[in-house]
């Protein structure tokens, strides 16, 4: 069995982990085009080489980031997402014009 080194729980069998896809920069959801958003949500680069990916340690519900070579399947490094994501991401809905404003316009 392959061993993956979880930054929180230490080395564990790979069967305890779930792959979560590539780590990508999120476009601004309020200002990006639909194509940019769809590209972010649905498509992946699928490179051969060292990629940065999300992984989940399922028994603890802990998400972390791994650098993995997709050719050799070797995991080079794993680390806590706090190394990259230093602040909480808040989502705000676009402000809809209120009914009274629409009448006067």
């Amino acid at each position, binding site marked *: *069995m392959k061993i993956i080194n979880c930054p*929180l*729980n230490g080395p*564990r*069998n790979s*069967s*305890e982990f779930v792959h979560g896809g590539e780590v990508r920069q999120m476009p601004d959801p309020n200002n990006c085009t639909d194509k940019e958003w769809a590209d972010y949500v649905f498509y992946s680069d699928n490179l051969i080489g060292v990629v940065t990916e999300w992984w989940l*340690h*399922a*028994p*603890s*519900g*802990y998400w972390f980031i791994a650098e993995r070579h997709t050719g050799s399947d070797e995991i080079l490094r794993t680390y806590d997402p706090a190394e990259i994501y230093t602040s909480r991401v808040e989502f705000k809905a676009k402000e809809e014009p209120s009914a009274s404003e629409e009448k006067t316009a």
Partner: protein
Amino acid sequence: MSLITPEQFDSRSFIYRKHQQAQFAEVAGAAQVVSYQGQRFPEMGLTDLSVLPRFGLRGPAAADALVAAGLLPPDKPNTLTLSDEGLMVLRLGYTEYWVLAVPGATVDLPALEQQLSGPGIYPVYCHDSFAWLVMSGDHLADVMAKVCAVDLREQNFASGDLVMTSLARVSGVICRHQMAGKNVFSIFSDSASAGYLWDALLDAMDEFNGAPAGQNSLI
């Protein structure tokens, strides 16, 4: 003869049907097995404490709130503290805490739960969604070696440590601590697979004369 049965209560352990020939007592609005008929304490016991009250909290303000409430939150992730009154605090990961009372503890958990709320604290439900099984006896690590890949021998897994891993192929939290002066493993696992895990652990314990045990063996 036991007059209290699990069916009298709306709140039941998920595996109450497994407890045949058991004597129950009312604990926290549910039926807790206190002993099994005609049985002395087994060499290795497995006790179902699922009905005992517990709650969880997580978030950036959780640790400070626990300190403010006079509790002893563990310093390091994946460890636990156990107070003299029998109040146990598990730290799962960085910002999640579970608060439990061991059998016989005189702690008002619902009042504590009310106190531990506010901005930056999110409730975690760990009562009805998790089974709490306690394994006691001298061969804890030997039994667990049959179902779990993590080294749980005392030199690598001391009292006060916990691991989140898979055991018998289901996810669970395993804690080593003391209960009534005995070395025990507390195991928390999804309630949906609790019946399977109960049987799997008893099967693994069989080699060491394991058997179901009531709460009385832990007080």
